[in-house]
């Protein structure tokens, strides 16, 4: 049963990702990307990462995609004629390079054999409690990066305002 769910979601996410790249209209690309994000969120739930799945839906499928759609509407890029894709040679070269890349990935994966999976209590590995205890524990290395992230977000806020402002 989990394998059936995996295959359905895998086909859905890969198909939506391919449609996102193939589509000419950026708004439709954004909607297909939302489909892929939601599929990845369900993958997180099947991998017993419930908290990350909720954050994925809120941050990626919610905030980031709203930002994308907002900028597309603001710059009026919805018209497909606005950016005609040029260069007939580019598509086949990109596909060949992509196939070479996936061959390199498969080759590197065949070099490494994973050790057998460690049996673990999968029910509470991804809850908010476990994540918080690991994030804020002093013996774990995650507290300093967590605090540094706040500075990163502050810099991003200031940078976005300065970039988008007409006169600073």
């Amino acid at each position, binding site marked *: 049963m989990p394998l059936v769910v995996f295959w359905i979601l*895998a086909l859905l996410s890969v198909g939506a990702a391919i449609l*996102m790249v193939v589509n000419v209209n950026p708004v439709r690309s954004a909607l297909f990307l939302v489909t892929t994000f939601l599929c990845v969120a369900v993958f997180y739930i099947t*991998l017993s*990462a419930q908290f990350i799945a909720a954050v994925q839906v809120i941050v*990626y499928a919610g905030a980031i995609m709203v930002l994308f759609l907002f900028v597309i509407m603001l710059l009026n890029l919805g018209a497909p004629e606005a950016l005609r894709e040029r260069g007939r040679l580019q598509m086949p*070269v990109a596909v060949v390079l992509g196939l070479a890349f996936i061959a390199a990935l498969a080759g590197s994966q065949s070099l490494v054999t994973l050790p057998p999976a460690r049996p673990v209590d999968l029910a509470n590995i991804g809850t908010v409690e476990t994540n918080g205890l690991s994030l804020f524990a002093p013996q774990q290395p995650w507290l300093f990066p967590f605090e540094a992230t706040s500075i990163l977000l502050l810099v991003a806020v200031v940078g976005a305002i300065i970039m988008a402002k007409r006169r600073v």
Partner: protein
Amino acid sequence: MVPTSYYMTLSGILFTIGVIGVLVKRNPIVIFMCIELMLNAANLSFIALGRHFGQVNGQMYVIFALSVAAAEVSVGLGIIIAIFRSKETINIDEVNLMKF
């Protein structure tokens, strides 16, 4: 339980689709979307390996990757708006100010 290698293969396929999109597209907003797809693929493999080894560390990495992605998107879309305001186009072929 679905084997971890399945998730790794799916992550590699999604990453490759993102790479092809970055190479093909001329619209910087769609290029940004492809970069987000690549980040998601990397996050998926992080979580799959975290479950494989029974550790919560994979999910910690994903939390930080998420916040960095949010910051990157906000600044990047601000840059796109600034380019559009000064050049009236965002075709990536015509934005070659820093090209040597």
